[in-house]
């Protein structure tokens, strides 16, 4: 029987060894999170259940707690506007949350564009499209800097005039107009032109959240890496595969790169349970648990030189 694999080809091995459900655990949780967050905003206008008002740019939960997007507020500040208190408190709550759990959790667990780009990538695999126009992964930092500069020069919240992340979120909650074309363009970019083009290379919102969560506490750990069979499933499942090698082969069995979206794709895809969720301070006791390891981990960056696997 052919295995149905909704999240992508690399999970085949994991499905065989762990079963379908466990090989799609984080994928299912992520989609549930993304869709239910959108529904939370949408059931207000649809059903009159107002748990949350507004959208991802700024919202009010249960008519009291404010939440605001810190990247939009930063652009607004660059444009010379001093925000009212509600928005500032809202942004502080969001900043603290993502600084703790990892900024790019926003990308993989909240942002609906991720569903679009993941689908494009899945279809790319199904159709066997291998054409890949190489882009620099740091292009997103360039666009981030440009967006902040343009905000300052023009006195507007510049990126919000084109931001497909906002267009899609707002579109689902308030109506999208011609914005679907922008989303379609991103889908086609990821499908036909560049592998993981938007989220992995261009999106400045992801870059901002990456910087925000650069020192986050919650991380992916490769604490079971002695069981690694070098099958490469994690690397193929990972939207930012360069983050994995240092954890798998480096001094510290932790994914410390700020690019990691903590999507759990590697946990799902690994047939031998190498990966798990952990905190930055939990350094694999499984590997002989030497006491000096915490100290050593502080000394190495996420991109430490590779050493030979055991």
């Amino acid at each position, binding site marked *: 029987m052919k295995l149905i694999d909704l999240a992508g080809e690399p999970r085949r091995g994991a499905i065989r060894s762990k079963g379908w459900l466990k090989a799609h655990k984080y994928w299912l949780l992520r989609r549930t999170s993304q869709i239910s967050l959108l529904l939370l905003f949408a059931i207000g206008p649809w059903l009159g259940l107002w748990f949350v008002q507004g959208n991802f*740019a700024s919202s009010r939960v249960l008519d009291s707690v404010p939440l605001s997007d810190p990247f939009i507020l930063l652009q607004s500040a660059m444009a010379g*506007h001093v925000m009212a208190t509600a928005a500032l408190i809202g942004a502080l709550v969001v900043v603290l949350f993502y600084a703790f759990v990892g900024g790019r959790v926003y990308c993989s667990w909240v942002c609906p564009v991720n569903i679009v780009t993941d689908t494009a990538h899945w279809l790319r695999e199904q159709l066997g499209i291998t054409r890949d126009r190489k882009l620099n992964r740091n292009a997103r930092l360039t666009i981030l800097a440009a967006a902040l500069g343009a905000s300052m020069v023009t006195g507007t919240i510049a990126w919000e005039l084109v931001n497909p992340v906002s267009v899609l979120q707002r579109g689902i909650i*308030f109506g999208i107009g011609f914005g679907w074309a922008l989303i379609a363009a991103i889908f086609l970019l990821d499908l036909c032109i560049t592998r993981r083009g938007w989220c992995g290379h261009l999106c400045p919102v992801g870059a901002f959240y990456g910087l925000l969560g650069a020192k986050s506490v919650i991380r992916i750990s490769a604490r079971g890496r002695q069981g690694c069979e070098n099958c490469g499933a994690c690397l193929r499942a990972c939207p930012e595969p360069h983050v994995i090698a240092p954890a798998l082969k480096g001094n510290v069995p932790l994914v410390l790169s700020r690019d990691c979206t903590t999507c759990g794709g590697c946990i799902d895809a690994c047939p031998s349970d190498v990966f798990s969720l952990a905190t930055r301070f939990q350094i694999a006791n499984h590997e002989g648990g030497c006491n000096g390891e915490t100290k050593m981990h502080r000394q190495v960056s996420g991109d430490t030189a590779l050493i030979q696997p055991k």
Partner: protein
Amino acid sequence: MGNHNPKPRAKGTVSRRDFIAGAAKSAGGVCAAGFALSLYAESAGSQPVQALRPPGAIAEEDFQSACVRCGLCVRACPYDTLKLAEFGDDVALGTPFFVARDVPCFMCPDVPCARACPTGALDAEIPSIKEATMGTAVLSDHENCLNYRGMHCSVCHRVCPIRDEAITLEKHVINGKPRLIPTVHSDHCTGCGRCEEQCVLAEAAIRVYPVDIARGSIGVNRAGRRI
């Protein structure tokens, strides 16, 4: 990449040449992308004549830096007046506006939309809806206005929420005949748009425009005296 640096370098270090080239590339990229985005932002900054901002909106150029496009004002409005601009609308993407001829502002005394704004793009402290300056009504087409033609329509006068202050009927003699002409008083008109919405003509003869479009201003002569 033929001309490799002869000395092997430790991992994680870059040559000065590579560093300068990389920095220049990034700076160039930032400038190019920033310039393109700035041009677009400038072109998107003008407000079309028929799109009115919600009550309490700060000046349009400040509004562009303050509004985060969250739609809390839209949700707070009990009349479905406000919309967020979608791709393809003439208004800056995602910002709130209304078109008076479709659904005007019904001038809630407690101004819920402005109170809901978390960023200060709408003045949440606005003391009363009568302080709002969403626009100014203008009797833009004298020739087709029924009152000008000698009928007693006066719908715009009757539906005005601040009747006899914002719009009054003034006696004029036109072509030797007495007429009652709807007359807007801009110091009281909030630009709610009820008059434009209710105008009985197929195309409204009275319209609400953003204040800076609707109103003239007194200039100064070369000596600096008002003329």
